[in-house]
């Protein structure tokens, strides 16, 4: 409380330290877990992941290897993690909490980065859960070669595929700033693209450059991914993730928070 030599009414901000990024990321993670909607979404991801794997273990006739379990987990997680990422952004607008969040941290880019980091951490956490489940169930399933095709690069590719899904949701959330629009767009856009692909068979090969959901699903293929396939993932990411994220980022910079 040493006012020092300040003129009356002036505020000494020399000791003021901006919130660290780690602190902001922790707050963003907490914002996803402190409402019933967010908590249930997280629980749903965990419960459905466990349930799907258990059901396959019980009802499948084959002796399932590690990779099979990992791919079972990827199905519900691929659907729900992007929804989580959408909500992480849009709840500030839908519930108007941005009025407080952006008043406390006026640098809006930092808030976006913190949310992006939180979304990434949620995806990684979900993937770790999937790995643990697969590791626990594989010995029980008793396949002849349970660890077939398991390699470091492959495990990273699956994580990348999940991250692409999450960031895709995040990018749509940021561009649209509305939960309902963003979630609908996230599911409708790949559907429309795949319908076009199905009808316009002549252009199928070329459309793979736009069709991120198909090109990123190739990452789940245990045999190697070709250079062309990587390039197709790249253009898809550019069109459906980088572009909307840039648009969304500019929108948030200019937007009036009310």
């Amino acid at each position, binding site marked *: 409380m040493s006012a020092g030599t300040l*003129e*009356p*009414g*002036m*505020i000494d*901000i020399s000791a*003021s*330290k*901006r*919130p660290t990024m780690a*602190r*902001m990321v*922790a*707050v963003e993670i*907490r*914002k996803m877990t*402190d*409402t*019933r*909607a967010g908590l249930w979404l997280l629980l749903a991801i965990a419960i459905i992941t466990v349930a799907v794997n258990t059901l396959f273990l019980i009802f499948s006739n084959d002796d399932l290897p590690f990779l099979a379990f990992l791919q079972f987990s990827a199905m519900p997680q691929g659907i729900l993690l992007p929804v989580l990422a959408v909500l992480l952004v849009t*709840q500030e607008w839908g*519930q*108007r*909490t941005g*009025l*407080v*969040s*952006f*008043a*406390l*941290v*006026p*640098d809006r880019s930092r808030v976006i980065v913190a949310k992006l980091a939180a979304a990434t951490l949620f995806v990684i956490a979900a993937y770790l859960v999937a790995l643990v489940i697969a590791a626990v169930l594989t010995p029980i399933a008793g396949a002849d070669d349970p660890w077939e095709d398991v390699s470091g690069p492959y495990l990273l590719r699956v994580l990348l595929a999940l991250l692409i899904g999450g960031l895709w949701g995040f990018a749509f959330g940021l561009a649209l700033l509305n939960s309902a629009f963003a979630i609908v767009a996230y599911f409708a856009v790949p559907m429309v693209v795949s319908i076009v692909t199905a009808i316009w068979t002549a252009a199928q090969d070329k459309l793979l450059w736009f069709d991120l959901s198909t090109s990123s699903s190739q990452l789940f293929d245990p045999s190697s991914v070709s250079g062309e396939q990587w390039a197709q993932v790249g253009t898809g990411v550019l069109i459906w993730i980088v572009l909307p994220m840039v648009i969304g980022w500019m929108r948030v910079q*200019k937007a*009036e*928070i*009310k």
Partner: protein
Amino acid sequence: MIKVENLTKRYGGFTAVDDVSFVAEPGRVTGFLGPNGAGKSTTMRMMVGLTRADSGRVTIGGHDYLKIPNPGRHVGVLLDASAQHAGRTGREILALSAATMGLPESRVDEMLHLVSLTESESKRRVRNYSLGMRQRLGIANALMGDPQVLILDEPANGLDPAGIRWMRGLLKGYADRGGTVLLSSHLLHEVEQVADELVMIGRGTIVAQGKPSEMLTNSGTFFRAVEQDQLIAALTSSGMAPVAVADGFRVDADSLQVGKVAASLGITMIELRPADGGLEDLFLELTADTQREAYPAGATTTEGAQA
């Protein structure tokens, strides 16, 4: 101290805030008064960088708000008590702010205690809060970082009379300790009880500012007397023109003049004070052309209202 200089904000062809300048001094409660849609909230949002100004600038304690590293520790902001996630508990909302600002969780309990939200109320979800409770929560949130400046948009909205009295005490005490308070309202009587200074805004421009007492100097005197008729006759004969107001009379003179006349005649005064409603009249008059309400002269004719 909040210093607003030539602040302007346009939406297309509509100028919401037009060259607004004023200063909110430390140690004072400054009331920011204007009818709905006059530009109060837009001005306040521009102060904290939530709305980008087209021109002009605001400094708070000598700084651009956007340049303050941890603004919550220096400037307390409440812009809309209802803008909270309905699914969070009151306590959690405060805890998130505390965490962002780097304050210990114990600060949350202090703030809850300060605004008289009980332990069980703080664990309820905000969805189930009354507007008054949301305001208390919002004020707790604003005070959390022990700021030197408070910016409160319609903080009394939804508070009951006891709540308004509590807030008045809180803000006065805060200002007496050297803090700067800017609070907005569209209700005059709410503001004049708390504010040391008034800034009146109508249709985006400042229409008047100053101390309420100074703004009221010409509003006249209200009086009641036992020998009412005798006093009125005496005042009329000395060139004044009393008019009946409520159960007494109002005259364009100061209290001293009326008192002297009454004393000279041995009249027993029941009431003698500056007339009420002066500030309200002034407020309505100054913002008249910005009001939505028109009283059509020929409402029954097909000509419709004259604005």
